[in-house]
């Protein structure tokens, strides 16, 4: 039985994969990691950066995160990774009262979690499995 063959084919031009959002204090860090994850996993996965404050300086911004989640969402759910501290608070604040499980903030190392999640999503796996891959990245040795 082939997990991918069992999946419904998305309409042409529409990704039917779990989206990934990367929230960082740094716009460059979020963008760079989104590039890395996309290059490894393939560009069919939507990996959306949400970095930097409203003024473009270091910081986090709820509107930037909300827009990134909207771009990443193809209907299969979105996994959100955050770098540290107030990034997490910003995402939590945004999801407050809207926690229906469709958008999932995961407790995962930023770089490894993003790459693991993107590869898992690119193979057409579920929101649950993509989130789990990101969280399991914590225990992975690099060599």
């Amino acid at each position, binding site marked *: 039985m082939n*997990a991918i063959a069992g999946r419904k084919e998305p309409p042409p031009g529409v990704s039917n994969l779990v989206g990934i959002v990367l929230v960082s204090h740094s716009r460059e860090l979020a963008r760079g990691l989104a590039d890395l994850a996309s290059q490894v996993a393939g560009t069919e996965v939507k990996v959306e950066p949400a970095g930097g404050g409203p003024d473009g300086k270091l910081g986090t911004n709820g509107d930037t995160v909300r827009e990134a989640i909207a771009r990443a969402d193809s209907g299969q759910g979105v996994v959100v990774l955050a770098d540290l501290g107030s990034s997490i608070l910003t995402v939590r604040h945004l999801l407050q009262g809207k926690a229906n499980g469709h958008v999932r903030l995961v407790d995962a190392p930023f770089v490894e979690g993003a790459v693991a999640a993107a590869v898992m999503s*690119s193979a057409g796996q579920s929101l649950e499995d993509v989130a789990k891959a990101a969280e399991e990245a914590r225990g992975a040795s690099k060599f």
Partner: protein
Amino acid sequence: MPAGVALHARPAATFVKTALRFRSQLTVGLDGKVANAKSILAVLALGATGGTVLRLSAEGEDAPAALEALAGCVSGLVE
């Protein structure tokens, strides 16, 4: 592994995506290390380089097809 190809990020992702098509438990071994073939981080941590021999194993209902697909994937890897 074909000579000149290392199991680094992109080839490793191709390998893992192939493994994820199957239900069986799949592992890939090198030099006494064994990695879950469905985990990109575990496969990357093997640090497999060109010309090395990988030991593939599968356990489950679709094990033969999975082994065949993974072996084909490895031998067909390009930079």
